[in-house]
Structures are given as structure tokens and as C-alpha cells.
């Protein structure tokens, strides 16, 4: 990157390191941190949305819908998350291709599953074999996002379900006494009030979500763990201008520090939000604030 990097063999010490750390591949590594942050930024609201849907479904008076919501929560939480990550990525991929196959190739007469092969017609492939590399990457990334959202949606649904029932019953009864319908009482009373009860669970979930991001690499996204393994492995002079031994340990140390720092920052921010939200609430936290002033 720097001008003096043109002849790596002549470099020494820190100068060598500064050139080494700015190679094209390292830039990919730094971009991967952005990928992880982007995933978190997209997944968190999406998972919250899934969770909200799940919680409403679980509360529904219509029995099959309520069973669906409760089943979703119970099953996803009862099974190791990593199994779900591996399962959903293949299942979603096949599901999408199957639907496209049904729509685009209605006159296809062979079975889709032949022994151990999953065959769909060429124009139903997702993404198409001819599409450029970036589409494949975006598709892989979106699959990962949806997978994360489904799994964390179940956890969020559990938290929100608890929070909705934690809203004092008397408040909802008052709303009903004022003539609000069930739906109105839900949107005007329960939903605005529940966040302070949901926050401890949701912040816990956020921490857990941060710590699940290294699993991206298992879903086929080129994330920081992928690059750390790639870049840290021993390099011989034959293949690169910057030969070095096995440095994977140092790369993983950097990842460890990144995650610890991220956790610490999140803890501080979440503590602030908790303080803000418990302001004026009829809870222990709110009461403590009232007494302090």
C-alpha cells in the first residue's frame, strides 16, 4: 500500500510489518470486521421482528397459531444452536430452489431427489450459475442473516412473550374498562410498556448474538475467522512476498481482543439504556432512581 512496499525483500522490522499488514488480503480481513458488524446490524432488528411475531403467535387465542408460536420457541431453544445453523442454511437453500423449480420448470418430469442428489433445472438454480461472484456472496450472506434471525427470533420471542405477560394486569384491565378492544389495549398499553421488562433479556440476547457471529464462517461467509485462518497459516517465500511462520495464534489473539472489547462496549451502552428506560417506571430500578434524586 505504501510506496516503499514495492520491494518487500529490502524491508526490516516495523516497516516490514506495516507493509505486511496492508496487503490486499489483509484489507479483506479488515472488511470482514465490517461484514460481522453489518450482520449484527441487520440481524438484530430482523430477529426482533421474528421474535415479536413469534410472541404474538404464542399469545394468540386461535389455538393452532398459538401452538405454532410455542412450538417454534420450544424447539429452537431445545436443540444446540449450531445444529440449527447448519440445518437452516441447507434447508433454506433447498426450499428456495424447490419453489423456483416448481414455478419455472413445470414440465420437468424427473424426481428432484435422485438417490443422494438434489436436482433442479438450471434456470431454477439460486443464484444462477452464470451470475457474478458478488451475487453469490450477497446470497450467502442473506441466507446467513435469515438463519440467524430465525434462531435468535425464537429466543427473542421467548423474552418478549415473558415481557408481555409481565406488564401489570391492572393496566390492561383499565384499558378494557375504558372501552378499548383487545387489539387496541395490546398496541396502546402492552407494547409501549413491555420494553423495560424485556430489556434485560434482550441485552442478554445481544451479547449472545455477538458471540455467535464466528459461526458465520461455518455458513460459508468469508468472515473474520475465515481470514484469520487463511492469513495466519504459514507462508513460504515461494507463494508470497511476505513469508512467515504459523501466526494463527496471533490472529486469534486479535479476534479474542476484538470480541472482548465489543462485549465491554456493549455492556456499557446497555447499562445506559437500562437506566434511561427505567426512568419513571413502577419497578425497583425506577424506584431507586426516584429516591436518589
Amino acid at each position: 500500500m505504501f510506496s516503499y512496499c514495492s520491494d518487500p525483500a529490502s524491508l526490516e522490522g516495523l516497516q516490514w510489518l506495516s507493509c505486511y499488514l496492508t496487503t490486499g488480503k489483509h484489507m479483506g480481513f479488515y472488511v470482514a470486521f465490517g461484514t460481522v458488524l453489518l450482520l449484527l446490524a441487520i440481524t438484530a432488528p430482523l430477529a426482533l421482528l421474528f421474535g415479536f411475531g413469534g410472541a404474538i403467535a404464542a399469545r394468540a387465542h386461535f389455538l393452532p397459531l398459538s401452538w405454532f408460536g410455542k412450538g417454534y420457541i420450544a424447539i429452537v431453544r431445545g436443540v444446540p444452536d449450531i445444529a440449527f445453523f447448519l440445518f437452516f442454511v441447507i434447508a433454506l437453500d433447498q426450499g428456495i430452489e424447490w419453489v423456483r423449480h416448481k414455478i419455472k420448470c413445470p414440465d420437468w418430469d424427473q424426481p428432484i431427489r435422485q438417490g443422494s442428489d438434489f436436482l433442479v433445472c438450471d434456470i431454477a438454480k439460486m443464484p444462477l450459475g452464470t451470475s457474478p461472484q458478488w451475487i453469490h456472496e450477497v446470497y450467502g450472506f442473506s441466507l446467513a442473516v435469515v438463519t440467524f434471525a430465525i434462531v435468535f427470533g425464537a429466543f427473542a420471542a421467548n423474552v418478549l412473550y415473558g415481557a408481555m405477560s409481565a406488564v401489570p394486569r391492572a393496566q390492561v384491565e383499565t384499558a378494557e374498562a375504558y372501552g378499548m378492544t383487545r387489539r387496541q389495549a395490546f398496541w396502546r398499553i402492552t407494547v409501549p410498556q413491555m420494553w423495560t421488562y424485556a430489556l434485560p433479556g434482550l441485552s442478554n440476547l445481544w451479547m449472545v448474538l455477538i458471540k455467535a457471529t464466528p459461526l458465520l464462517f461455518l455458513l460459508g461467509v468469508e468472515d473474520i475467522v475465515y481470514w484469520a485462518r487463511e492469513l495466519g497459516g504459514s507462508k513460504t517465500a515461494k507463494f508470497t512476498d511476505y513469508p512467515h511462520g504459523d501466526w494463527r495464534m496471533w490472529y486469534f489473539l486479535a479476534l479474542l481482543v476484538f470480541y472482548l472489547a465489543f462485549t465491554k462496549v456493549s455492556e456499557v451502552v446497555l447499562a445506559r439504556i437500562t437506566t434511561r428506560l427505567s426512568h419513571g417506571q413502577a419497578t425497583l430500578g425506577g424506584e431507586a432512581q426516584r429516591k436518589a434524586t
Partner: protein
Amino acid sequence: MSCLETIQAYAFRSLGYGERLLPRSDFTLCEHFTLIGSGMIWNIYFGTLAVISGFFFANLLAVAKNSSSAMWRKPAEWFIFVFRGSPLFIQFFFAYFLFLELKGFSPILDAFSSAWLGALVVLFFNTSAYSAEIFYGALRSIPKGDIEAADAYGLSGWHRFRRIMWPTMMRLAWPSYTNEAIFLFHATTLVFFSGFPAWRQQGDALYYANYFADKTFNPFVPYPILALYFIMLTLLIIGLFGLVNKRLNRHIPQERRTKMRLRPNLIR
């Protein structure tokens, strides 16, 4: 092969007994069940040993974190922060490379780079940190009156801790500790999947489930089987921990007993 023969051939495949080669094509349901079940041996091995050994260390850590002397408190706080703040996934990777580096130095250290010991050490530290935080929280919420009563009866130091504080701490922490144990068992699936390589294809349940899913390109058979095994394991843990909970609470009036509530909402 009939199903019985399959079970004979593969039931202990994950430990290296029985058939050496994994089936390559025409997978039967029986093979799915047997091999994934065989892999569960590893999950149970890791989980059980880590929970039992971690329990003792977690107690030490919780007491250290509660200590008024910074010499004890700081190391415990840092230990808990590092192991709870970083992904288990990274911990496994990191530990594996660390153990590989150490491998040359002395023959005693060689065993650490294999999964059965190395991964167990990581899981032990990890579960110790999580449980220590639970125990610490329970230690902080022991009713003030209990301690005052102990003081009034002249109990102090070690006696007060062993007879009053520790049993109360256990009683308060037990429901959360149950969840922690369940999640540790779930976390054992990461051992062969991320950090430690599966030697001669002797992996855990997820390793075999993934093997089948890769070979057949059909996730809808092996993963539900894996889920079934794990749900059974979870129920077993809840049963066992429930017995302990009952014993811990036997002197408390019925309506004030701490309830076991299943709240697995942690991933590492």
C-alpha cells in the same frame, strides 16, 4: 446389513471400536440413528466431566470474586470476564493452536492437543466462568437475615460459610445452574466442529449428522435425529438436577421453594 448388525458394527464407532470405515452410500435410517447416537457418547463425556469438575472451580471463583481483597477478586473477575466475554468458538480455536505450540516442549503436554483432553480443559474453564457468575449472583442475594442469624449463634468464618452461606447459595443458584448445565451439553457440539480435528472420523453427534447431511444433501433426516437425541438428553438433565433441587429445598415450606424453570437462553 440388518439393523442389529449395524448397531453391532457402529455403536462404538466414535470411540474407535467396530467397523473402521463409515458407510458411503445407501444410508439407512438405522445407520443414521446408530452413528449419531454413537457420537452422543462424546457429548455426554465432555458435558459430564466438565460440569462435575467445573462445579468445584466455580465455587472457588465465586467466593474469590466476592472477596474484599483485590488480590483474590481481580483475577477471578478477569477470568470470568474473559471466558464469558469471548465466543466459545474462538476459545476452542485459540486453545488448539496454543496447545499445538506447546506440543514440542514436553511429552506431558502432547495429550492436550487431542480433543479428549484439550477440549475438556476449555469446556472446564468455560463452564467454570459461567457457573461462577451464577454462584456469585446467588451469593450476593443470600438473605441478610440468614447471615445475621448465623452471627448471632456465634458461627463465623469457615463454619458460617459451610453451614449457612454455601447451602443457601446452592439453593438459590440451582435453577439457573441447571440451565447452564443444559447449555454446556449443547456447547459440546462445537468441539469437533470448530477447534479440534476429529481423529479417524471419530467425532461427536453433530459431526456424524453433518457427515450424513453432506453425503446425502438432505438435512431433513440427520438433524431431526440429532435434535431428538439432544431433547432426550436435556430431559434427563432436568430430571437429575430436579432431584438435587428437591433435596436442596426439602426444609423450605412448600410455597416458598425456588421453582425449577427451564430458561435456556444462552449461547456461547
